[in-house]
């Protein structure tokens, strides 16, 4: 059953340590927003923790699809249920629930299609590490060169999307299964969608590891470069 026009999508993979706190913090906002947790094939007690926290909407994927695959599941659900807006929110506790209201305010103006919570414009100090900082700088440059738009945080997971955007993501066969970041943004900006950023507050992850650590950062960087090239070629064709 749908309560409001906005759905918060939380993709979660092995987040038993963080998910309860994230859900409780969102509840403290005292809004009527619907929340759906996409359990991306977790092998721990993520589902139990979500249900214990009072969230009845848990979509469990039969196996681990990856961050993008889990998000796309949420978009498909949102399309089926007829939501007007969705907000992507990470399950690791790094996003500040207060920012949800800011995203909603932006979306309701009807001007932007995509609202990104930028960790680099934010109130808290955000240090992604040398490797990731370098990758983000390259992606920023590539977006600027290819679209003319400056996006300070193309890898931010805190985003608000209008129905037009998430319907496209839900139906597109090429929506990345793993990391929908700079490549997706380039393709959306090139297709005429409007993107705005706002200063997001970033918090410290309580436990667990980020999906971009060690050798995975290098893989992520190379894979994203290939993906951006493909998007640029597609746009030219």
């Amino acid at each position, binding site marked *: *059953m749908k309560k409001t026009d906005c759905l918060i999508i939380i993709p979660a993979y092995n987040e038993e340590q963080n998910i309860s706190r994230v859900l409780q913090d969102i509840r403290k906002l005292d809004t009527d927003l619907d929340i759906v947790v*996409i359990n991306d094939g977790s092998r721990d007690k993520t589902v139990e923790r979500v249900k214990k926290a009072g969230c*009845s*909407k*848990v*979509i*469990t*994927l*039969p*196996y681990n*699809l990856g961050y993008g*695959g889990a998000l*796309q*599941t949420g978009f*498909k*659900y949102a399309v*089926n249920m007829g939501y007007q807006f969705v907000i992507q929110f990470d399950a690791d506790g790094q996003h500040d629930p207060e920012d949800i209201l800011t995203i909603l305010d932006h979306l309701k103006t009807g001007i932007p299609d995509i609202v990104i919570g930028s960790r680099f414009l934010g109130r808290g100090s955000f240090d992604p590490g040398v490797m990731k900082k370098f990758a983000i700088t390259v992606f920023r440059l590539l977006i600027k060169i290819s679209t003319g738009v400056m996006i300070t945080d193309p890898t931010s997971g805190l985003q608000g999307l209008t129905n037009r955007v998430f319907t496209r993501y839900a139906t597109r*066969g090429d929506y990345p*299964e793993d990391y929908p970041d700079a490549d997706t943004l380039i393709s959306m900006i090139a297709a005429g969608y409007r993107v705005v950023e706002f200063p997001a507050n970033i918090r410290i992850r309580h436990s667990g590891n980020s999906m971009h650590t060690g050798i995975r950062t290098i893989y992520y960087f190379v894979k994203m470069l290939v993906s951006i090239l493909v998007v640029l070629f597609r746009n030219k064709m």
Partner: protein
Amino acid sequence: MSVALKLTILLLGLMFVVAVIYLLVINRINQRNSLPWLTGALIILTLSTIPEILEVAAHFTGVDYPPTLLFLLSTLVILSILLYQSIQISLLQDRCKELAQHLAIVNFNEESRRTEKQWYNNKNTTKIKEMSQSQNVNQSTHHFS
């Protein structure tokens, strides 16, 4: 090409064809996927039985030693098949993802419907119990008066 080499290639080619046909018979590979392997094996068999084709081809491509061309062709066939397999794996991955997402959403909707139905049933049962209790109270009050 020496007779020994010719025979070795012919034997290996034949063994390969037999292996593919055996896999087809026991349903370990489907007809569609066996076609590139069978075609590749047939090319090798033809070239090893009629090496003149290879010699003419080697002459035109500037290859000094014709058997080298055979190995080059074999490598190209294998690379093409590997590429074809990668395309197939990508397609299957996409289909698997679509199925997994669909299944997850259908399961969730089904579970929600069941929970909702159970909630209404429980509510109705409580209502009926309350009604029958109030009826009993009414009857006993009436009887008493």
